[in-house]
């Protein structure tokens, strides 16, 4: 069993869980994920590790309520436990070794980009984070990212930071020059738009893909994505890929596979970043 050591409501449907998982806390690297299962009969849910404390033996997971299964996770309280946590899974982020990087986070994707920004900063990279949400209450991980560099906050309604999409701020940073890498995690349309922003500048851009998966070890093939025209498995070949090679339209379409099942779930939909909501948008 993996006890819950802390829970924090970050946004209306987004909760941060601190979970005791000592081994994973010790060995996980930025970009990696776990698959959790609440208990008997529960679904296996992939969640990117947002943070870890090796001394306390805990990892941090950020969950957005999308359907029944994520609703159960969001409702967890200290004293309860996850039956299964498997990982760390996926390949770690390919971090640049010198220069300047921009980390773009949309909605819960901001929690995923956080460990990347942390690691870059720790390696001496100058990091600027561009994070977005529909409105003030949907912006998460702002303070944590300020601890590792400059942060530009964007909201759709202008209720916090600047009004507009993260892509506009990213575009300005690209135009100003001097960027060596961009890491973007968020809803598919946001990642796709970021890829188009950086493409003309030739800035290496990494995205973390949230495709649907069961086992997370390469066995189901459900998470297959097309990268540079060939199929890759997000769970073992990714989850991070070169944004300029990803077929985002295919990914977005495949993410709607179980929409009918989710709509049957009792939980009302709650869009995160004002762009799109998708099936596996739980990290």
């Amino acid at each position: 069993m993996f006890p819950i050591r802390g829970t924090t409501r970050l946004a209306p449907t987004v909760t941060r869980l601190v979970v005791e998982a000592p081994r994973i806390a010790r060995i996980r690297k930025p970009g990696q994920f776990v698959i959790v299962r609440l208990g008997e009969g529960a679904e296996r849910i992939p969640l990117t590790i947002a943070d870890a404390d090796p001394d306390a033996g805990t990892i941090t997971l950020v969950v957005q309520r999308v359907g029944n299964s994520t609703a159960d996770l969001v409702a967890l309280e200290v004293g309860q436990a996850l039956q299964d946590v498997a990982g760390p899974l996926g390949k770690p982020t390919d971090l640049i070794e010198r220069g300047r990087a921009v980390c773009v986070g949309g909605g819960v994707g901001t929690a995923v980009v956080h460990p990347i920004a942390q690691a870059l900063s720790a390696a001496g990279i100058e990091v600027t984070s561009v994070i977005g949400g529909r409105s003030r209450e949907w912006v998460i991980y702002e303070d944590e990212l300020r601890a590792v560099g400059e942060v530009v906050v964007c909201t759709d309604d202008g209720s916090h930071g600047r009004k507009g999409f993260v892509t506009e701020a990213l575009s300005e940073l690209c135009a100003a020059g001097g960027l060596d890498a961009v890491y973007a995690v968020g809803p598919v349309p946001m990642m796709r738009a970021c890829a188009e922003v950086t493409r003309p500048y030739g800035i290496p851009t990494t995205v973390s893909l949230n495709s649907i998966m069961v086992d997370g070890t390469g066995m189901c093939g459900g998470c297959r994505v097309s990268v540079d025209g060939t199929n890759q498995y997000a769970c073992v070949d990714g989850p991070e890929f070169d944004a300029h090679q990803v077929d985002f339209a295919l990914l977005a379409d495949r993410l709607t596979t179980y929409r009918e099942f989710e709509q049957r779930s009792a939980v009302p939909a709650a869009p995160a970043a004002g762009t799109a909501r998708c099936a596996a948008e739980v990290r």
Partner: protein
Amino acid sequence: MDAMTQDDRAGEDGSAPERRGTDGAPTARPHAHGAGRERRTARGGLSTKERMAIDRQSMPAQDAHDRAANFGEVNLGFTEQLAMLEAQRCLLCKKPTCIEGCPVRVNIPQFIELLARGDLAAAASSLLSDNALPCVTGRVCPQESQCEGVCLRGRTLRGVPGEPVAIGHLERFVADWALEHADQLNGVMPEPSGRSVAVVGSGPGGLTAAGELARRGHQVTIFEAFHAAGGVLVYGIPEFRLPKEIVQVEIDRLVQLGVEIRPNSIVGRTYTLAELREEFDAVFVAVGAGLPVFMNLPGENLKGVYSANEYLTRVNLMGAHRPDARTPVLTGKRVAVVGGGNVAMDAVRTARRLGAEDAVIVYRRSRDELPARLEEVHHAEEEGVRFQFLTAPLEVLGDETGWVQGLRCARMELGEPDESGRRRPVTVPGSEFVVDADLVVVAIGTRANPLLTQASPDLPVNRWGYLVADEDGRSALPGVFAGGDIVRGAATVILAMGDGKRAAAAIDEYLRGLPAAAPVTADAG
């Protein structure tokens, strides 16, 4: 040893098993040689002629129409009466070819003779000493190409085709009896050897090796990537063919032997092979060939195209067919399954049970080349599965919303035999047609799982990513052994079990050859 007391009989039909205390425990271990000697004197009174006169007993099964709508087990199992009658068909050959035909070398005539005599406890002990998972193999082995394939009774005599002894059904009967009468089998805990072995993967190969090693007194820890142990036995093979409850009992038996199972442990991610080699005296790698192979055809990424692995895992492991399931699975009215092996049969029969009106196997060769077990093909046909032979998909067709609509296929004809000895299918020009389908399941094979091997660069693999190991499972690294699909490529449960058994013997030998462990001192501890 052979005497059957009234007590034994009472316990056998379940009427009074509780009465058996430790002093009343049956003497369950048969003499390996004794059974052979008695063959000539105590054949239960039957002559060869009398044995030859008994027809093969058929397996009681759920009605095909009923079962095509439920997940209950298809075969219902022999009654004791049927089992004993069938057992009497065995001619107790002096040179039993059936043992040679069995990848784990079960002493088949011995357990069958004990069964024919009604000594079920002895039959069970005999079987269990040879085979760690008899409930499983009695249900899923391709007996027709192994033990039953070489059974003397299967030979054609004077133009009349024979019928082999139903060894698989008898194995199942004895193994199931053993599950229900565990109290009548003497479970002696082995003397601890002081050695430890890590087994990576809890499929049939890993479980077999674990059982064999634990019975030799070694401390075994199994590392399993999923949340539940069993590997392909739980995620791959459906409930209607192998009830998960039975797999669990077999696993529980290992746990009782002292085997530790660590779920959620992915070697290559959670642990490295190097760490396991540090912590354990030996490692057995049996991670399987779990990566699905796709057809590489246009349209294969459309919604509604599953690998068989994904489709079966959602149903078998995650229970997606249950009304209260949290894990979804797509269901179709017209389901096309591409492939002709056991996995394809499992998938297409699952589709029928999930409500498919048209469930069709699309296979590029003909019926004669189907690699699936005969019984699975028969069962599928009885359940209304359609077979589209000599048909090869060219493209997966979709609608404007990205959902699969069908398969564009070509008709094939069989040409010259290829390197596998099977006749190579050749496209018939101008023969294209469409198989309508709202769900497509690709069951054309699997390949090596790369997680462990990629993280262990010092472990040699071949060009297909399979581990290189000798016949007894020894890899190039001292103390590291491997077997099952990760060595031989996708094969059967029983072949993986055979590998596990042989590797366990080699591991045991290796462990015995190790220098005596230094005594643990307070400082070192």
